[in-house]
């Protein structure tokens, strides 16, 4: 109920208080002046909301440096054959060839109405195809070597979470891709290294966070943009384990095209990726909490 209200309510009308829904009980919580702007309805199963207290953002200097070079464009064709792209990142795995991105970049998401419909292929998500990863892509360069300084990597396999495959569940919008070699017969990890990652995190953490991507809104997505800011947990909303995961104020033009782009710690550990935002709340981006489902998908491509 709280979640539904969250979708249909007008955010400005609740802009002075923080209303925390705990089951059927609503609690009115006074907030600091700084937190007033963050006011919104929070459901009992909405685990973590962040109050971004400071923010920096801008371009990624080129030529990119590590770990920026682990990030790149993931070109693909959607389930209807239309060419599109997302952002993806090489992570450190045994295969030396694994990408993390958003599940919606890999698969359309299923529409099974209930768990009883799982297994019926008619409800399964439809796969995208022709994935091609270009790390450190810089479309402003005049030569192919400049645009793709580490080459391009085609795909071997792609896996998404169970809940995405059957239910287009944006709480589990995480996917992984296995790549092949580039034209120099090198693995992605050899060429650009890889980020770390965090699964099953205790998401009560507060940390300085870095985000990165190829947003379409900036120069047609041909270059990387980054932002960083301190994400301060606003609501101690337990249980904080299996829900949307992370949310924070949208960073400038990091919107369409940044999907799948990494959110990572100062230790270069990715804890989620760009996923979605609400149309009525376009100043906030969400990333899924990487739980056991993401772990299973990673295992398929590690």
């Amino acid at each position: 109920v709280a979640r539904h209200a969250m979708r249909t309510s007008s955010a400005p009308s609740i802009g002075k208080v923080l209303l925390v829904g705990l089951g059927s009980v609503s609690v009115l919580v006074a907030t600091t002046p700084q937190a007033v702007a963050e006011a919104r309805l929070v459901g009992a199963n909405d685990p973590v909301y962040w109050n971004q207290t400071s923010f920096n953002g801008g371009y990624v200097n080129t030529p990119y440096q590590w770990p920026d070079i682990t990030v790149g464009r993931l070109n693909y064709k959607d389930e209807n054959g239309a060419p599109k792209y997302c952002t993806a990142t090489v992570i450190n795995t045994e295969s030396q060839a694994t990408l993390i991105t958003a599940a919606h970049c890999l698969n359309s998401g299923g529409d099974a109405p209930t768990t009883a419909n799982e297994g019926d292929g008619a409800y399964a998500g439809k796969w995208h195809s022709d994935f091609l990863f270009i790390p450190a892509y810089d479309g402003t360069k005049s030569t192919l070597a400049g645009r793709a300084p580490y080459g391009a990597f085609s795909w071997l396999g792609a896996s998404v979470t169970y809940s995405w495959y059957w239910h287009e569940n944006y709480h589990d919008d995480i996917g992984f891709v296995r790549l092949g070699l580039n034209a120099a017969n090198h693995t992605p990890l050899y060429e650009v290294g890889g980020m770390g990652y965090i699964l099953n995190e205790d998401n009560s953490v507060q940390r300085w966070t870095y985000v990165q991507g190829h947003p379409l809104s900036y120069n047609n997505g041909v270059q990387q943009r980054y932002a960083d800011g301190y994400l301060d947990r606003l609501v101690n909303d337990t249980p904080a384990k299996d829900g949307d995961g992370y949310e924070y104020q949208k960073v400038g033009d990091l919107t369409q095209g940044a999907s799948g782009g990494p959110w990572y710690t100062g230790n270069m550990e990715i804890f989620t990726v760009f996923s979605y935002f609400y149309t009525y709340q376009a100043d906030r981006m969400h990333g899924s909490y990487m739980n056991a489902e993401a772990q299973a998908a990673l295992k398929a491509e590690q």
Partner: protein
Amino acid sequence: MSIGHLARRQLILGLVVLAALLSGSAVFLTMTAPKAKADNDIRGCPVSPASTLAVCIATNAAGAGGTLVNESGNGVDTGIMGTDWTLAELSAATADGVGLTAGSATSGILPSAPNANLPVDQTEFPPALPLNPSLAGNSIANYPFRSSR
């Protein structure tokens, strides 16, 4: 110091040692848990280009510090990620009910990337890049939510 005092001190010392041993055992059991608990971190470490492959996983059961478990990279892990996931297990993993009710979470949500048809530079790259057969065996081909080329 009387014998009574000595006996009492020995008893207290014994209790302290016993407590320490029990505490140590608990830590040990936590560190070697066969499968990550829901509240444990699992971390893969970043690696710079062309460096020696070193996959490491950290578990943070106690919420402080964390224990790094270095792996040899031979594909055999410590058990943290070594269990094959069955459909039933995956289903159980989502049994929290989050988002499984029709319309509970998706309406009103706008995916952030694939809405735009873009001029994609796919054509400037070779259509069929080489694979890496020596590494292909690491994937779990029977994962039910996987697509392959």
